């Protein structure tokens, strides 16, 4: 296939003498193959890299916003405060009291906010991991798994996290925070605007820590 069989007559010689060639001419296919693989590589990479991923976020309805706080158990609430700076995350547990609440400083590294969330959400994560093992051992269907998963993460004693932002918070940080919540199986969560008193507390704390 790669060879071209010369026709019986062959090309005419200088003086019209017929010279029959023996064997066959081969075409060097290497450049063509190179090109083919180059194109192949390009298309494979372009095809797989361009697929966008998405993260689902559900915002509360306007009306539900008000009674949210009353529903919350103080011990289960954690609030993450996202300021202007990229790697500065403050959080506090329970409800905010301007004089007594102490903001803890952390960041988005492995030992930062995730450690706190994993600790806080320990029982839920254990239950979810249990469920996952069962699902992986094919002891339940996907629907059943999802239902149970929702039940566990949405139960009344599951920790609740509120992410609070100021207008100049970078979008990246908000996504980062929600992603951490997703990783740590915190499904009871909300994104809200930071109250003025909290914003003041963040500024004070930043000054205190000398950042």
């Amino acid at each position: 296939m790669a060879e071209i069989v010369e026709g019986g007559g062959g090309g005419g010689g200088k003086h019209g003498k017929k010279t029959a060639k023996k064997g066959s001419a081969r075409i060097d296919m290497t450049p063509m193959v190179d090109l083919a693989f180059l194109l192949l590589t390009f298309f494979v990479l372009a095809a797989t890299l361009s697929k966008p991923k998405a993260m689902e976020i559900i915002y509360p309805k306007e009306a539900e916003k008000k009674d949210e706080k009353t529903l919350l158990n103080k011990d289960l609430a954690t609030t993450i405060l996202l300021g202007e700076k990229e790697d500065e995350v403050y959080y506090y547990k329970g409800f905010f009291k301007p004089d007594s609440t102490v903001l803890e400083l952390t960041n988005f590294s492995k030992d930062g906010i995730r450690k706190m969330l994993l600790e806080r959400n320990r029982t839920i994560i254990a239950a979810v991991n249990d469920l996952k093992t069962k699902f992986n051992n094919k002891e339940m269907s996907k629907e059943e798994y999802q239902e149970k998963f929702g039940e566990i993460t949405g139960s009344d004693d599951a920790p609740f996290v509120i992410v609070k932002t100021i207008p100049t918070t970078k979008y990246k940080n908000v996504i980062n925070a929600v992603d951490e919540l997703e990783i740590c199986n915190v499904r009871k969560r909300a994104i809200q605007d930071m109250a003025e008193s909290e914003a003041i507390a963040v500024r004070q704390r930043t000054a205190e820590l000398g950042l």
Partner: protein
Amino acid sequence: MPKIKIPKNAPSLDMTPMVDLAFLLVTFFMLTAKFRNMEPVEAEPPSATSEIQLPEKVMLVTVDKEGRVFFDISGKKIREYTLDHIRQRYPSMQLTQTQIDNFINMGTFGQSIANLPRYLSADNDVKEQMDKQTKGIPVDSLDNQLSAWILDGYQGFLDDANELGLTEDDLKDKKNGLSYAIKADAETEYAKVKKVVDTFRDNRIYQFNMVTNLKGTDAPDAKVNGDQQ
């Protein structure tokens, strides 16, 4: 023992099957590749570990670094119906058939209603210029045109679903329903994104797909986040 015979010619390998395969794959990938429409806006979404795929039928609102808002909705039929509704809403906007066709085949855009006709008949150079200068689709409370696009986009989607004979129950299924996606640049201020989110919420849409880039996770419990909905 006989002498080992050394071949005079270089050994040749028949590469034909490999080449055949390579070209087959090239052809496959070329044909299946969907070329993206030229995007008038640059928005590099933040990275996250989420592995949920962006749905096919989607209304996509892009927010760039400066907070300019761009709108896109998938499906040519849906776009056609959407534009029909928009034209009813803004009767002052006159469009020729060519401009309508251009709109149907276009991707993301970020022009106000006043500038849209000019944008639709502009050539590529002028379009690029307009994309640079545009302030995006207005989202301020006085003249929230994004809200109009969202409403009419949904109407357009319903028209299309009606034509396909889908019932309301069919639409509840995620596969058939319209998803709402927001693609914002990682460096955008959250307030600008929130404006878009609030516009959606005013129209009673609460669930969003935030477009992200996939990143690896170094979590000790990485197995925990493998659940897709």
